[in-house]
C-alpha cells in the first residue's frame, strides 16, 4: 500500500518486506527518540531561559539515571541487533535447491549466465517465485551487485566467488546497480532485472539463442584443456575423481579438511598446489592466467553437475569416460 510513496523502492522480493519492517521499526524508534530529545531541549530552553533573579540550580548527576539510560538503550540495541542479524542470516543462506546464475563483473558491465546456457549482458531475466542463487566473481576490480527492489547487495570480488540469493515476488523491471566504486564508468555499470511470470519466462528462455547448457559448455572446456586425461571417473586417474565431490568434505594432503565448494574448485583449477587432495601428487599445472572467468564458470558448473544425480551433464560424462 505504500508502494507509491517515494520513501522506498518497489518491494519485489521475498526478503524485501522483512528489511522494510525493521526499517520502519527503526524509523519509528528514531522518530520517537528525536521527538523526545528535541522536545526536552525546546522545553528546557524556553522554561529555563535566563531570567533576572533566577539562578541555575546545580545538579551533580544521578547514577540511577545514567545506568537507566545506558542499560535501556543497550537492551533496545540488542533487540535491533538480533532482528537485523536474523534478516541477514536469511539473506545469506540460499535455499539448497535454488537455481543458479553465474555472474562475471568487469569494468563496466555485468555478464550473466543461466545454467540453461542463456547469456545476458546488463540484464537479468528471472521468473516470479523461483529461488535464484547468484554466484559472482569479478575479472578486474571490486564491484557490487545491488538490486534495491530486492534489498540485496553483495560485493563482487576478483579472485573468488561470492554469493547472494533472492526470490522475486512481483513482475516488473528493476534497477541493477554497481554499488562499489569501480572506476570511470562506475555509474554506467547499471542494468535491469526483469522479473517475469513463469510462463513468459519459459517463453523467453526458449526464445533466446543458447549454445548449450553451462555445464555442457564447461564439459567441452574440460575436454579441450585436457583435464579429462587425469580426472577420470574411475579412481585410478592421476587426479581425483570429480564425480560427486561437490559439496562434500575433502581430506587434504596436509591433514586439513575442506568442503569442495565453488571457491575450492576455483582455487584448485587456478592454483592446484594450494590444497592437494590426500593421496595425490601436486602435479597438476597451474591454470592461473590461462582460463578466462567465463571458462572457469563453465568448469565450475560442470564439476557441480557431476554431483547432481539427475543432471544431464553427469550422464554424458559417465557415458563418455567409460
Amino acid at each position, binding site marked *: 500500500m505504500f508502494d507509491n510513496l517515494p520513501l522506498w523502492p518497489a518491494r519485489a522480493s521475498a526478503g524485501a518486506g522483512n528489511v522494510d519492517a525493521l526499517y520502519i521499526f527503526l524509523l519509528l524508534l528514531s522518530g520517537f527518540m528525536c521527538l523526545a530529545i528535541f522536545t526536552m531541549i525546546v522545553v528546557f530552553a524556553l522554561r529555563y531561559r535566563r531570567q533576572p533573579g533566577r539562578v541555575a540550580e546545580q545538579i551533580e548527576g544521578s547514577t540511577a539515571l545514567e545506568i537507566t539510560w545506558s542499560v535501556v538503550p543497550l537492551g533496545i540495541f540488542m533487540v535491533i541487533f538480533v532482528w537485523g542479524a536474523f534478516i541477514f542470516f536469511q539473506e545469506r543462506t540460499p535455499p539448497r535447491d535454488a537455481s543458479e546464475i553465474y555472474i562475471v563483473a568487469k569494468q563496466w558491465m555485468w555478464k550473466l549466465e543461466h545454467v540453461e546456457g542463456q547469456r545476458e549482458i546488463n540484464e537479468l531475466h528471472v521468473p516470479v517465485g523461483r529461488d535464484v542463487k547468484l554466484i559472482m566473481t569479478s575479472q578486474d576490480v571490486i564491484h557490487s551487485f545491488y538490486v534495491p527492489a530486492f534489498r540485496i547487495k553483495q560485493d563482487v570480488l576478483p579472485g573468488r566467488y561470492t554469493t547472494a540469493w533472492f526470490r522475486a515476488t512481483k513482475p516488473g523491471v528493476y534497477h541493477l546497480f554497481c554499488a562499489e566504486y569501480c572506476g570511470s564508468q562506475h555509474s554506467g555499470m547499471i542494468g535491469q532485472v526483469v522479473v517475469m511470470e513463469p510462463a513468459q519466462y519459459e517463453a523467453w528462455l526458449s526464445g533466446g539463442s543458447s549454445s548449450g547448457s553451462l555445464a555442457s559448455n564447461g564439459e567441452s572446456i574440460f575436454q579441450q584443456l585436457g583435464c579429462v586425461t587425469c580426472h577420470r571417473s574411475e579412481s585410478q586417474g592421476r587426479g581425483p575423481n570429480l564425480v560427486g565431490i561437490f559439496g562434500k568434505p575433502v581430506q587434504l594432503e596436509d591433514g586439513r579438511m575442506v568442503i569442495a565448494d565453488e571457491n575450492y574448485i576455483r582455487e584448485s583449477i587456478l*592454483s592446484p*598446489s*594450494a590444497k*592437494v587432495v590426500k593421496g595425490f601428487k*601436486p602435479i597438476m599445472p*597451474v591454470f*592461473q592466467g590461462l582460463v578466462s572467468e567465463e571458462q572457469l564458470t563453465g568448469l565450475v558448473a560442470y564439476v557441480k553437475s557431476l554431483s547432481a544425480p539427475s543432471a544431464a551433464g553427469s550422464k554424458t560424462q559417465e557415458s563418455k569416460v567409460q
Partner: protein
Amino acid sequence: MSDSTATSGHGPELLHHFSTAEQQRDAASLGMWLFLGTEIMFFGGMFCAYLIYRLWYFNEFAAGSRSLDIWLGTINTIVLICSSLTVALGVRAAQMGKRKLLVTLLVLTIIFGVAFLGIKGVEWYAKYKEHHIPGASFDASDLIRDYPQIHIDPAHEQIYFSLYFAMTGLHALHMIIGVGMFTYLLYHSMKGRYGPEYYTPIEIGGLYWHFVDVVWIYLFPLLYLIDRKPLG
C-alpha cells in the same frame, strides 16, 4: 631554545615551560614510550598481513624461510643484543657521569648498528642474486627445485618475500634512524653535555634502540624460523 627564560632554579637544559627538571625528563620519557606504542601499531599492520598470509600460504612461507641464511640471521640477532647491552651500559655510564665510558659505549653501539645493517645488506644482496626480490624479475623456480617436498606457488612465494622485505626494510630504516640518532648523541657526549644531572636524551634514545631490538627479536623467529625441521 632561544626563548628559554632563565628563572630561578632553571638549569641550562631546562626548557622554559617546565617547572622542574624532573617534570621535563618524565615528559620526554613518556613521550618516547607513547611513540613506541605508536610504533607497535605501525609494525602491527604488517604483522597482521603476515599472520593472515602465513596461515593461508604456510608452504610458501616455510620455503621462503628456509631460503634465508639462518647463520647471518642469528649473528645479526646477537649483534643487536650486544648493541642493546652497550646502550644499557651507556645510559648507566651517563647516570654515573662517566663520560669517557659513555663515549666508548656509544661508539660501540654505532659500530654494532652499522654491522647489523651491513650483514642485512649482504643478505639482501644474496636475495637479489637469487631473484627473490618481488617485482618483475621475481623467480621462485630455484625454491621449487630445492624443496620438491613442498608445494610452492610462485605468486604466494612472492607474498612471503614482499612481507620479508617490507618488514626487514622498515626495521632497517629504524636502525638507520637509530644510528643517526646515536651519532648525534655521541657528538654531544664528546662535548660533555650529558651527566648525572641531565641524561634524558641518552635515556630516551636508548628506549628507542631497545625497541628496535625487540622488534627484531620477533622478526627473527617469524621470518627465519618458520619451518626448519628436517623435510620428510
